[in-house]
């Protein structure tokens, strides 16, 4: 089992490296090059040459990649083309804000989704199950911004309970932060919970249909004991995978929700940078989002390996 975990760790770091190559290569697939894309109509030969020099485009891509990735490992993410400030300086507070919102939402959405999924599976076919099933099928289909604006319209505008915008600053106190981000958090929870709950239900149901669960019932074991002692330990590994898989929705959701509530996070920064062709900032944000996703998936896989009885007790 140790070998398996080591293997997964190695694969994780390899993927991280591959993702960085991909992010770098993604900015190299231009028919011309970055300089001509940035200058567009102002591209005279001289301008281009100066621009290329500035961006270091006169050197081979491999060298530039090595410099970029090497720098990134040391926290040096280059300079923004728009502000000419170091990317890392702009990034740090934004990253803190996004992490705050993501963790805040996950801390509520994950347990809630697992609980609802478990209950729906245990009461399969009941009114509760069917209601939850149809409602979640609908919320999956509803875009994040509609959920956000509906909450904003009814909770903030009509009832006036919460602020419409989540404009936190560096100085905002922690309690205030929780209050200001309550609405974005709710939006994210509603969006993420549906997928996670449906998939939890499906994996628990798959376990509940197995012969050893029928056997437990035939042994006269009470239903709650069957669920807690027999089904849950086996459902753990698939449920962990489900949670990890759905963190992708959380990451995408964060980008959109930040835009809806004008929340100064990494997603907003990245969207602005994309429209301004500010490539170093885009690359840095992309690398951060990708690493978060890859590391979370890796942790989830390792947790799933640890939860598998066949791997924990080899022959």
């Amino acid at each position: 089992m140790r070998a398996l975990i080591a293997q997964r760790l190695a694969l994780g770091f390899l993927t991280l490296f591959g993702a960085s190559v991909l992010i770098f290569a993604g900015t190299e697939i231009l028919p011309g090059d970055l300089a001509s894309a940035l200058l567009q109509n102002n591209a005279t030969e001289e301008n281009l040459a100066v621009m290329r020099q500035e961006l270091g485009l006169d050197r081979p891509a491999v060298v530039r990649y090595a410099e970029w990735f090497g720098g990134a490992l040391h926290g040096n993410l280059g300079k923004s083309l728009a502000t000419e400030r170091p990317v890392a300086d702009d990034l740090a507070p934004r990253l803190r804000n996004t992490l705050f919102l993501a963790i805040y939402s996950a801390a509520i959405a994950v347990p809630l989704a697992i609980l609802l999924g478990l209950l729906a599976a245990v009461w399969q076919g009941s009114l509760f199950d069917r209601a939850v099933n149809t409602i979640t099928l609908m919320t999956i289909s509803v875009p994040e911004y509609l959920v956000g604006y509906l909450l904003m319209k009814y909770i903030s505008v009509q009832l006036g309970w919460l602020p419409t915008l989540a404009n936190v600053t560096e100085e905002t106190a922690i309690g205030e932060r929780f209050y200001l981000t309550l609405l974005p958090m709710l939006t994210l929870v509603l969006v993420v919970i549906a997928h996670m709950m449906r998939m939890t239900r499906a994996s628990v149901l798959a376990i509940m249909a197995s012969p050893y669960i029928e056997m437990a019932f035939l042994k006269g074991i009470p239903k709650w004991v069957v669920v807690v002692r027999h089904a849950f330990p086996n459902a753990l590994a698939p449920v962990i995978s489900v949670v990890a898989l759905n963190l992708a929705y959380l990451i995408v959701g964060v980008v959109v929700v930040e835009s809806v509530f004008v929340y100064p996070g990494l997603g907003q920064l990245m969207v602005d940078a994309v429209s301004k062709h500010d490539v170093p900032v885009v690359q840095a944000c992309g690398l951060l989002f990708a690493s978060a996703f890859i590391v979370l998936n890796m942790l989830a896989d390792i947790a799933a390996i640890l939860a598998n009885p066949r791997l924990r007790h080899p022959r």
Partner: protein
Amino acid sequence: MTIPGVRLFGHRLTWPAALGLVIIAINLIGAVGAPWIAPFDQADVVCDAWDDPSAQHLLGCDNLGRDLLSRLLFGARMSIGLSLLITSLSFTIGIVTGFTAAIAKGWVDAALSRTVDLLLSMPSLIFAFVVLSVLGTEVPVLVVTLACLDSTRVFRLSRALAMNIVALEYVEVARLRGEGLWWIILREVLPAARAPLIAEYGLRFSFAFLFVAALSFLGLGIQPPDADWGSMVRDYRDMINLGVTAPFWPAGAIAVLTIGVNFVVDWLLAIQSRGHGENA
């Protein structure tokens, strides 16, 4: 939950699935017929900004005094048409590469699978941002980028499907007989993979549709003056504080169409898992 007497593909239709089909049909009619159905052109300024709904302007007017209903209909054309284009392209790429990987095996499979693993190792929105930041947001760039990103999931599904089918004994019989590769793909593999692929097409369509809308909402998708539902939400969103309902029309339209597609997909998946024989 089934509707008595109504059948599709030999299976009983459920109420949600029927509702989904009706929603899809209405949207398609609106999208295809927009130039004829819409009372005004999408770019014409025909009234004052934020005019209330009236007999002439059923849903009222937008920020520049354009007819909201007309923009919604033309927006359907853009949003749905683009998503169909992306999904179809992603299916073509995904199925060809997926089937090739499953049947060719060996290094072809390994190379394709590792590339796809890598592309799937980060959220596709993030990678789309990276590409769009250098290539800009013209429609052809958008279509090709999103189709390529989406095709990774189609690749996985079609590869897995083909792998399972190729392992079945009736395919072995065809191989033992000496049938060629294309005959096996077309006559033995594809018919069995058709049903799950149709369901996947619906699923991928709703993903592509939400994806395009999200990009437009973020200002990185379809650019003005073309109407599309995502950018309409973006254009009207500031009015929420003033109680104007305009942003909810396009946002609601996005949600309703996606719900409709998902209802139909859910039904398609359910009848598949019930398997053969029960449809007699």
